[in-house]
């Protein structure tokens, strides 16, 4: 009985959790964290069960309220979203654990109840996006998670965060409008909102300007959500001024959700036949992604603030994912989807390290990190591992995704993109190496000596997630066959095989 309903439970549980948190927080504030933690933990277990089920028996279909699709809302879990769910909930779990101590200094105490409530709403929204097979439902969840994200960004004491959040809100709302108009167009043309149904009904209409303009609306809207260059302007401020736990959460979970939605729209709703044959949009995608990769890295090099640098680096890394998807052969797609996992793990670790340093010393400019490795050895070591993975040094996991994307580019004869990927590894090395050198091989400045010397590795609830992610950078690289087992069937499905 219950197992049949796991698909919906993964969305219901965090919604219930959010209300429970709110009520419990009314009684006592310290109840909030455990409830949030338990909720996400249960979800994570469910996501594992779902992935196991999907890999064993094939895609799961769940009809909400027993209304048959295409009239009712259908939830579908295939290998791709099973995989995405596991990754996202794993990251959410670690971020939640990390937030316990990290928000103490960053968020006013009375806001903690709200913080965890919104945190769970965000997770609910993200899970909803992942499981839904209905286009309008996707939009609803996208908005739930986005609104939660705007609130979380603004939750800190940092004054600039308010402005960043407002900026994010404006851009996010513009993006939501585009997506909604896209959905409207498709509904007018076909009369259905079910993704599978759309994929069936759309092919005869591929020539129609209505469909093509809907497609463009989707692309632009989702490009804003994923901060695809040059629509990334909201991202750096939002990532760097948000409280550290939130930075880690939105940089990993939220950004990946946008990519996931993009993949769904491109490949499941519109199918490769349309995006490759009808409108040669993928070529354009590759070029934009290539520009994003280079520009993001170059901008990251020029930053003086650690979190800001990581934010620009995200723009470049999202470029990798989109390049993998844009090349659109199975090898490159494998790399692109693998990079969803990789980037979540690496960037999560890096943002958490940045937060831990702020927590321990209050320092956030790169110049101030001199000599920090002596007093925060484990944190610095984790940073080094994650940075090595970002550069793509084997045997870390970052190497594997670059390998696949570059190999895919070679297979499709696009040598230029291979050069881009490799060149950007160097750029990445430049901006991380500077931090690394400062952390390990310099004496702190006089003014910062007290702060650096008095620092310590953060408390266990912050350190453990950091170390888990750092270890994951290496383990997933060595045992890359494990995620590939899930990714390969999902790529086959996306590219039209069965």
């Amino acid at each position, binding site marked *: 009985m219950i197992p049949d309903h796991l698909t919906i439970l993964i969305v219901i549980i965090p919604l219930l959790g959010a209300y429970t948190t709110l009520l419990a927080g009314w009684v006592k504030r310290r109840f909030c964290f455990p409830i949030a933690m338990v909720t996400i933990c249960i979800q994570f277990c469910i996501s594992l069960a779902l992935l196991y089920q999907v890999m064993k028996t094939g895609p799961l279909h769940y009809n909400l309220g027993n209304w048959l699709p295409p009239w009712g809302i259908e939830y579908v879990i295939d290998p791709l979203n099973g995989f995405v769910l596991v990754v996202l909930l794993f990251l959410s779990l670690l971020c939640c654990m990390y937030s316990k101590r990290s928000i103490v200094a960053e968020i006013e105490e009375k806001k903690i109840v709200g913080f965890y409530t919104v945190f769970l709403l965000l997770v609910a929204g993200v899970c909803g996006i992942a499981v839904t097979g209905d286009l309008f439902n996707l939009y609803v969840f996208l908005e739930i998670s986005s609104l939660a994200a705007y609130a979380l960004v603004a939750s800190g004491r940092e004054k600039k965060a308010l402005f960043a959040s407002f900026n994010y809100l404006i851009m996010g709302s513009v993006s939501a409008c585009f997506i909604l108009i896209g959905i409207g167009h498709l509904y007018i043309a076909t009369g259905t909102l079910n993704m599978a149904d759309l994929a069936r009904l759309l092919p005869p209409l591929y020539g129609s300007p209505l469909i093509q303009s809907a497609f463009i609306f989707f692309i632009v809207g989702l490009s804003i959500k994923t901060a695809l260059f040059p629509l990334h302007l909201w991202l750096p401020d939002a990532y760097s001024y948000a409280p550290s736990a939130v930075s880690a959460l939105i940089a990993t979970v939220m950004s990946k959700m946008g990519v996931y939605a993009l993949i769904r729209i491109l490949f499941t709703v519109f199918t490769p036949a349309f995006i490759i044959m009808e409108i040669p949009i993928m070529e354009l995608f590759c070029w934009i992604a290539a520009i994003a990769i280079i520009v993001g890295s170059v901008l990251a090099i020029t930053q003086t603030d650690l979190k800001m640098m990581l934010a620009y680096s995200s723009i470049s890394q999202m470029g990798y994912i989109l390049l993998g998807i844009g090349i659109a052969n199975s090898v490159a797609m494998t790399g692109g989807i693998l990079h969803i996992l990789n980037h979540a793990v690496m960037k999560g670790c890096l943002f958490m390290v940045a937060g831990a340093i702020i927590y321990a010393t209050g320092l956030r400019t790169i110049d101030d990190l001199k000599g920090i490795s002596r007093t925060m050895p484990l944190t610095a070591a984790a940073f080094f591992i994650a940075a090595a993975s970002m550069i793509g040094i084997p045997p870390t996991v970052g190497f594997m995704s670059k390998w696949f994307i570059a*190999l895919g580019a070679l297979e499709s004869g696009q040598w230029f993109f*291979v050069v881009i990927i490799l060149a950007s590894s160097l750029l990445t090395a430049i901006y991380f190496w500077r931090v690394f*050198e400062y952390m390990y091989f310099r004496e702190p400045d006089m003014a910062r000596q007290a702060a650096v010397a008095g620092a310590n590795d953060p408390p266990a609830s912050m350190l453990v997630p950091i170390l888990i992610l750092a270890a994951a950078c290496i383990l997933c690289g*060595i045992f890359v066959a494990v995620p590939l087992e899930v990714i390969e069937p999902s790529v086959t499905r996306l590219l039209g095989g069965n």
Partner: protein
Amino acid sequence: MEVTSFVPALAVAIPAIASILILVFRHHECIREGWTVIASFATLATVLSLLPSVLSGNEPGFTLLEILPGLSISFRADAFALIFALTSSSLWVMNSFYSIGYMRAHKEHGLTRYFFCFAVAISAALGIAFSADLLTMFIFYEILTLSTYPLVVHAETEDARRAGRKYIAYLLTAGIFFLFSVLVTYFLTRGTAFLPGGILTGHGSEALLTLLFITFLIGFAKAAWMPLHSWLPTAMIAPTPVSALLHAVAVVKAGVFGIARVAFYIFGIDLLSVLRLGLLLGIIASFTIIVASMMALTQDNLKKRLAYSTISQLSYILLGIALLTPSGIIAALIHIPFHAFMKITLFFAAGSVIIMTGIENISEMKGIGRQMPLTMLMFAIGAIGICGLPPVCGIITKWYLALGAIEAHQMLFLLVIISSSILNVLYFMPIIYTAFFEKPAEDRGIREAPLFMLVPLCITGIGSVLLFFFPDWPFMSLVKIAVGVITGEVIP
């Protein structure tokens, strides 16, 4: 014959495990350094245990994991690998003692980091030696780059950091070219395993293969061929034991070893000669040999002069590869251990002088040979060896190299070999003259270095002489097996 055996991976694992133990015992100086010594002996013993099997023609190895079909992490100890592995591991033993003596005498800071990185670097060097495919080699190649960076910036001065940036910029960029080459190789052949005779024959156009060879060469910038050499003299800012073992043996030999692996086991002799790539490599090597020797002449800093000498000597190995004849390849492979023994002796001697007197410039070394006779005698042995004079092992290389040039009908290369010998004499003899025959300015009560440093120095120095008399044990035997496998001919 291939045999499944975990021993090659064990040799890689021992220094890696030791590096962790070094971190764990960071507060106990003696235990920490004890682990370095124990690990170096254990590694040597492990490598030696492979010797009988390899000498009888076996190739023990295994696949750790297969990431994709044709893309795996695997280890194999063939005769070719063992030449490099045995060189690195035996000299690590010497260097461990020397390091302890040197770093303590110098009252250096950050010793835990030093010994940790050193052990990781050796593990990576052995990994490169025993890797059975390009991907494994690439992984260890990058680890070697990363682990040696902290050793270069050890002093933590602005100069050291600048040197470190240059070092990492050169080697990481090279790593990118290496990765590109691995990718293209995999793309063309769906495999990356090293096979005698190569795997690329019949794949790709001539232009692509030529490009691939060039990107491989750039990837192996660790071989310090000109004009990609300038990281090496810069890296001399590192403590002398690092210059001695890593920047005269492990790192740079990893570069030439990699080029040899790729030339013979990815491209294959036939393909190289069809594409005339041997000639290309030969020209690069000749240019490097001559120019580096001339630049060595202009250096007053002893370590820098030795570094330029290393650059030129490494290109002997490249020239031997480029000749593509059995004698040439013998010269190339045998020069890996021989040059290592001679050059480490020179660096050990230079380090002893630095520790005992603080002098780094040759012009200030007047009469140092009278005050440190044993040290400078060993230095003289090393120098004679590099010049290619008996009774030191260097002459064996020159002999085979000259023979190879004649076999290949490349008289120009013969000329290069002869003129470089003259240059070698020109840049080493003034040092020996200054040390022994010029009068010291004043008597400063200089003594020989402590035994921790002196004994390893004497062992490597005497070793270089012994290798002249007994080249067969074990290096030449290994080289002959390896060349037999590469060329398909039986080498007497």
